[in-house]
């Protein structure tokens, strides 16, 4: 079959993703109390959870979509979304790789994704996901020995209700913002991690290893709690381009670090950015916040954002504990028609708190991106320090980069430094590399990777290598 026909077929399949036959496991589009009750019941949740969801829902009804971001998109019809649907049945999914968009497969190839994983990523009906059940079992045993809880949020609500109840919504309250409120009302998936006192999690945790995470939820809710002196490194996402029939994604991630705890949260996000015109791409409205609740606690966000049609995301740190530390390292790449408004908030509350922000933005094609960062130093945050560095790199002359730094300094003992640069990928750098025989595309990726180095070196080793490959694929065809 010609690849064009193939693509059409795949696209048609895509459209029909919103299965029309109403089975018992799927609710029709629309959102009201009964939808929420249905979700809560399907998940086997206790009464308090349903109440919590409904509280969020009532708050959400009174709220309006934020409009301050530097983004353009048509209004979202929240009644047109189906808030609970069972995963596609195997017979409805592509039966083999031959039925998958060849372009997608080509990208997997370039990213060096092992053959057996490609099928799973492309949504092909395979029996054993990643055929690594044994790996997962060993993994679970190890965590169990260490006393680390790592499971889906739904399972946690059923199995560890006290822990969830104690922390859920304490970092991102139900009515924090429009999308967080929506998420609080209807979330159906996500992870829960609890690392007990004094435990250093024996391995990096990744959703990849959570068996039931094969399909990314539209409204994910993740809660990570590190008790006193505990440590964990959590990896979210995947470098492979992920397609999803749900256009709107509104996740919430809450991190809680108690005394001397350290949470490192790394994300590589590469959702479908849409076609050349940005059509069909994912809207990603995420609320991520970490609470350094205990003294000397530390939370570190590292993100590589390359996908989605629209990204609205500001991983933040509340630095409450004395001498607590917040870090944000970010690389955001936009190409084609992508739009990204991303950055961070560092809220210094406790004494001698420190924060570091390193944000690198790369815009190519006709994309547009903004860095938006707030550094707030409260009146009691004596001796607080912040260092911010944000650099933008433009490729071509049809893209845009904007920087919106906000600073609110509430006492005179704080030290706040801010450095910002915007540069066009320098013609002379390109010429220099090409005059050594390196072709233009390789030269661009070399220069861009160099530009991002400060952030990449914060990523876990394996992720860093993947991130470089991903950057190259994302920027393909952005010059010349």
């Amino acid at each position, binding site marked *: 079959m010609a690849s064009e026909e193939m693509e059409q077929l795949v696209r048609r399949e895509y459209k029909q993703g919103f299965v029309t036959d109403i089975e018992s496991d799927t609710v029709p589009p629309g959102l009201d109390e009964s939808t929420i009750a249905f979700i809560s019941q399907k998940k086997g949740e206790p009464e308090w959870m349903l109440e919590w969801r409904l509280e969020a829902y009532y708050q959400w009804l009174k709220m309006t979509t934020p409009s301050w971001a530097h983004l353009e998109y048509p209004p979202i019809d929240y009644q047109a979304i189906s808030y609970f649907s069972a995963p596609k049945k195997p017979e409805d999914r592509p039966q083999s790789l031959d039925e998958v968009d060849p372009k997608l497969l080509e990208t997997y190839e370039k990213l060096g994704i092992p053959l057996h994983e490609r099928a799973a990523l492309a949504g092909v009906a395979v029996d054993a996901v990643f055929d690594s059940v044994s790996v997962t079992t060993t993994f679970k045993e190890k965590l169990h020995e260490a006393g680390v809880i790592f499971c889906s949020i739904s399972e946690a609500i059923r199995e560890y209700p006290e822990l969830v109840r104690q922390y859920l919504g304490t970092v991102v309250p139900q009515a924090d913002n429009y999308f967080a409120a929506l998420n609080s009302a209807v979330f159906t998936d996500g992870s829960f991690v609890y690392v007990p006192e004094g435990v250093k999690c024996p391995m990096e945790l990744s959703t990849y290893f959570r068996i039931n995470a094969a399909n990314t939820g539209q409204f994910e809710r993740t809660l990570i709690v590190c008790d006193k002196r505990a440590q964990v490194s959590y990896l979210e996402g995947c470098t492979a381009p992920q397609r999803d029939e749900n256009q709107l994604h509104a996740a919430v991630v809450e991190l809680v670090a108690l005394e001397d705890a350290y949470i490192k949260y790394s994300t590589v996000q590469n959702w479908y950015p849409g076609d050349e015109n940005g059509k069909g791409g994912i809207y990603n409205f995420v609320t991520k916040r970490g609470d350094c609740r205990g003294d000397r606690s530390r939370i570190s966000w590292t993100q590589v954002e390359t996908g989605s049609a629209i990204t609205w995301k500001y991983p933040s740190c509340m630095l409450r504990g004395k001498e607590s530390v917040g870090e944000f390292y970010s690389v955001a790449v936009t190409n084609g028609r992508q739009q990204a408004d991303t950055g961070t908030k560092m809220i210094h509350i406790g004494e001698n708190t420190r924060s570091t922000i390193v944000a690198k933005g790369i815009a190519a094609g006709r994309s547009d991106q903004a860095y938006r960062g707030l550094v707030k130093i409260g009146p009691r945050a004596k001796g607080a320090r912040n260092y911010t560095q944000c650099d933008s790199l433009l490729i071509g002359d049809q893209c845009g980069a904007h920087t919106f730094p906000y600073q609110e300094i509430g006492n005179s003992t704080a030290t706040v430094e801010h450095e910002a640069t915007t540069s066009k990928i320098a013609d002379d*750098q390109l010429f*220099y*590399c*090409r*005059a050594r025989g390196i072709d233009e595309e390789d030269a661009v990726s070399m220069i861009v990777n160099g530009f991002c180095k400060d952030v990449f070196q914060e990523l876990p080793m394996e992720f860093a290598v993947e991130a470089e490959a991903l950057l190259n694929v994302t920027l393909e065809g952005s010059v010349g």
Partner: protein
Amino acid sequence: MLEVKDLHVTIEDKAILKGLDLTVNAGEVHAIMGPNGAGKSTLSAVIAGKDGYEVTQGTILFEGQDVLEMEIEERARAGLLLGFQYPIEIPGVKNIYLLKAALNAQRAARGEGEIPAPEFMKLVREKSAEMKMDPSFLQRAVNEGFSGGEKKRNEILQMLVLQPKLAMLDEIDSGLDIDAMKVVADGVNSLRSADRAILMVTHYQRLLNHIVPDRVHVLVDGRIVKSGDKDLALELEARGYEWVLEESVA
């Protein structure tokens, strides 16, 4: 090896080169001298393929190939290499990484596989020792925070690793103290061979005491107005450019 014929070049409609002829054979070292603004740097930039220059007339042939039809990287892979007057800084990209990428790109163009890592390390260590560069330079970002002399040595290091057929050196002596000049000159001299040519652009005769040219050309107002052997450079040093101009007009 290199044959430039009747080359006319403009920058933003301003004529810089106005009918330049130059022939460089394998095994030869040529020096182009001339007053500021004569078009010396333009010549090497155009041969390397830099943007912003418009060739309105004339041809450049390299081993019989039409250089003007080739992409920048194709010219480099064919063996045309330009050493920059102001080497460019590339933050975050290790020097050794650039060297390896460049060498492998050239090897690929010749149908050879990538150079094995141990062989590459040996080569690079050897060559950086020749340039009296500490191995730590290889791990630093390309030219970032390098002194003027370090940058120039780095340019020659690239030449030693990449082994071009025609090495073009644009004001390689500018900003060098005597010791650095000696190191750079030794590096360039080690490149001299029967199957390689070197084209130097320079203001000053002093470089030519260290790298003795076979031919010296005087470039004035977009044309080569006088050519000679190494003694011409000495004469220029003593008498300036005026007399050449007068002679050429007459």
